[in-house]
């Protein structure tokens, strides 16, 4: 009885601590055996295995090829395959391609695309399909560089990044391999001071000054209400009829007095003529 306890409790715990953890169950992609006979082969992907399921038209990766990916910008944190990339800044990575087979392979192109994280068949954005057309002989390896810039409009959302390598072997069979197929987040890099924040502070400052002015006005009106002005201002009566003409030159004064007397005469004459006409009218009516 005790042996059972020992086996099923202690041994897994010891393994997790001491072992590398590689014996834990994990899912592995089942790769179809696409390495077919070379002689008498036309340029088609044919599965020799009778147990191959219906989707023979879908190209898969070759068994002889091993690929690795390394992101150099931005550098992911240790041991983490999903990380954050910055919108508007270039993302660079290298793909290593090793040919463990016995035939030449030609790496044709590599393309990256953003997919919808919930459904990897839905393309959101396609990036350049960069052509390499590099021949990799057996037992050799090659490195391919690729970079792209995620659009700033995509900031703040997760995307599935799919990096696909297209290559073919000497007999013309085409293969595609998804070198990277993970979901990552696009973050927005916010610089320290931008236009919006600057004017926000200006607005807040103006609001503060307005509050101060309002407070000062309120205080002033309060003070005015409490103590009205007891000293009344002397009433202004305007200039008296005595006008001092000393500062005018003599000629002008004479002209002015002449003008005044002429005006007075004109007014008197007008008044007289009005009186005369009125008298005439009265006399006519009376008649």
């Amino acid at each position, binding site marked *: 009885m005790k042996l059972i306890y020992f086996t099923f409790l202690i041994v897994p715990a010891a*393994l997790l601590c001491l072992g*590398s953890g590689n*014996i834990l169950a994990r899912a592995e992609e089942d790769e179809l055996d696409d390495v077919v006979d070379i002689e008498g082969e036309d340029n088609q992907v044919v599965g020799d295995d009778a147990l191959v399921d219906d989707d023979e038209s879908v190209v898969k990766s070759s068994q002889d090829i091993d690929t690795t990916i390394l992101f*150099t910008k931005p550098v992911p944190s240790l041991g983490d395959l999903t990380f954050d990339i910055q919108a508007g800044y270039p993302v660079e990575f290298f793909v290593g391609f090793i040919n463990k087979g016995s035939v030449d392979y030609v790496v044709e192109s590599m393309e990256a695309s953003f997919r919808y994280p919930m459904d990897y068949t839905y393309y959101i954005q396609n990036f350049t399909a960069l052509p390499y057309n*590099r021949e990799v002989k057996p*037992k050799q*390896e090659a490195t391919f560089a690729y970079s792209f810039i995620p659009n700033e409009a995509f900031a703040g959302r997760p995307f599935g990044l799919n990096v696909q390598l297209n290559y073919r072997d000497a007999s013309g069979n085409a293969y595609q391999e998804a070198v990277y197929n993970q979901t990552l987040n696009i973050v927005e890099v916010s610089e320290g001071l931008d236009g919006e924040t600057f004017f926000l502070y200006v607005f807040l400052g103006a609001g503060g000054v307005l509050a101060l002015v309002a407070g000062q006005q309120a205080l002033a009106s309060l003070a005015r209400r409490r103590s009205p002005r007891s000293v009344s201002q002397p009433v202004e009566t305007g200039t008296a009829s005595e006008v001092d003409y000393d500062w005018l030159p003599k000629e002008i004064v004479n002209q002015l007095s002449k003008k005044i007397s002429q005006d007075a005469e004109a007014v008197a004459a007008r008044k007289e003529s009005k009186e005369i006409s009125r008298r005439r009218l009265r006399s006519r009516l009376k008649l």
Partner: protein
Amino acid sequence: MAAKLLYFVLFIAAAVSADDEPVLARLLVSKQVLNKYLVENMDILVKYTLFNVGSAPAVEVKLVDNGFHPDVFTVVGGQLTAEIDRIAPQTNVSHVVTVRSNKYGYFNFSSAEVTYKASEDATDVQYSISSAPGEGAIVAFKDYDRKFSSHILDWAAFAVMTLPSLAIPFGLWYSSKSKYEKLSKPKKGH
């Protein structure tokens, strides 16, 4: 019962101690041209970075770049071959070369070749090809100079050419000013 459990335990122990992957070094070599403008007879900086993504150190690493033909390219800094004794796992090493081209036109920057041994006690040499920057246009010096030089001589010539259009009105004004100054002087002196 006890024997079965014992077999079970031994089996798991064997699985843990067995290696899943061979401990090997894997080098990713990148070749980058750092220049913004490629101009003939001016420095072109080429940077080679070797990343070891494996779990073992890479030993006897030899990098050679045969893509720069000695008739056209002169090496002014660094060397086109490099030897690194050991690159530890999960580290990278970079090597920079400065070359100058005496011709202008389109040039295809091809890959460099690296040979290394994948672990300390490996016998085979692994051959690796670096990434290639691709085709670049090396601009003639005349065009680059027209765009970027300080054009001191051109500005000096321009200044000399504009001198007449400035000097003639100034001369006319000065002559009339001095004439009227002379005229107004005896009046004041009186």
